[in-house]
């Protein structure tokens, strides 16, 4: 699964730490998601989408191997 959290975060001009605080997770979690090392739970994906004001599909996309 791919995501464009890094891009969305850049648009809002937020650091990983700020984004982490806003949605109540650790900085490592944001870092791991941005570098495609961690697939978030549905709850977390929905929280991220809500913060960016987009739908989940606009932020997360399936890849061929999924």
């Amino acid at each position: 699964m791919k995501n464009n959290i890094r891009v969305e975060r850049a648009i809002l001009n937020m650091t990983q730490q700020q984004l982490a605080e806003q949605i109540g997770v650790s900085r490592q979690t944001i870092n791991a998601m941005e570098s495609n090392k961690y697939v978030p739970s549905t709850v977390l994906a929905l929280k991220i989408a809500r913060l960016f004001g987009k739908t989940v599909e606009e932020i997360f996309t399936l890849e061929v191997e999924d």
Partner: protein
Amino acid sequence: MHQPLLLHHRFKAIGLAVLIPSFICWLIWTFDVYDFPFLKTGRGGGILDQRNHSLVEELIFTGLAAGLLMIAFSREKIEDEYIMTLRLQSLQWAVLVNSLLLVLATWIFYGEDFLKVMIYNMLTVLIIFVIRFQYMLYSKKSPKRTIFSLPPRLKKIGLLIVIACIIAYVVQIFEIYDFPFLETGNSMESSFLNNLNYNWIDEILTTGMTVGLIFMTFAREKSEDEFIVSIRLRSLQAAVLLNYGLLFLMNWFFFEGDFVNILIYNMFTVLIIFVIWFNITLRKTSSSLIPE
């Protein structure tokens, strides 16, 4: 979502506060600087010191294990789903590495030395886990975070190996057959189960049991998905905790030879408890998922 068994964040500091003095006491006691005479009970010998039993061993072990457990199982400041995944993956890694080291140690150490290996083995899973987890959390390179697993068919093969080892163990214990072809002829080197006559049976049985149990523990289910992985990792945490609970009790109830037996079983109990716990949880969940 089910909350995993974790302590409050401040237990990390409390754990260190318990661990450090226990470790210092252990050093003092091991190097004969001071032998805590006020703790002598006058009862038979302990596991390490055969002449004179004192409560020192029990207290030091309890202190070391309690300190490590608190450090290992206290929440991080922000404990989210990702940290939980890291935690459980590190635990899986620690159990695997510990088992492999133990197999290696069986072939390298004998008699007294192996007894020491088994004593340290009571704590090594936790030590390896704490180091691995901190490394995964703070490493800049962010290591590959994958769940280790083996092909599904190894589950049955593992079970067969374990059964074969148990049968061989029973056969040997009740002296039905003593596997003469495995004798090394070196009667000086005593092994840990049988002090009279050295042969390879202990090493082979330990290796067999461990490998069989590792196969059963790490073989994927036929349809292994993220839900099964989460059951798997939680069961592993439960198994480690339960194992330490039992070990704490045994530490106070058994002495000398009996405690050595506990140490021998302890080489396999985490994996055995895991296999049982995981399979029961899996069956329970699948039976409650029958469609209406």
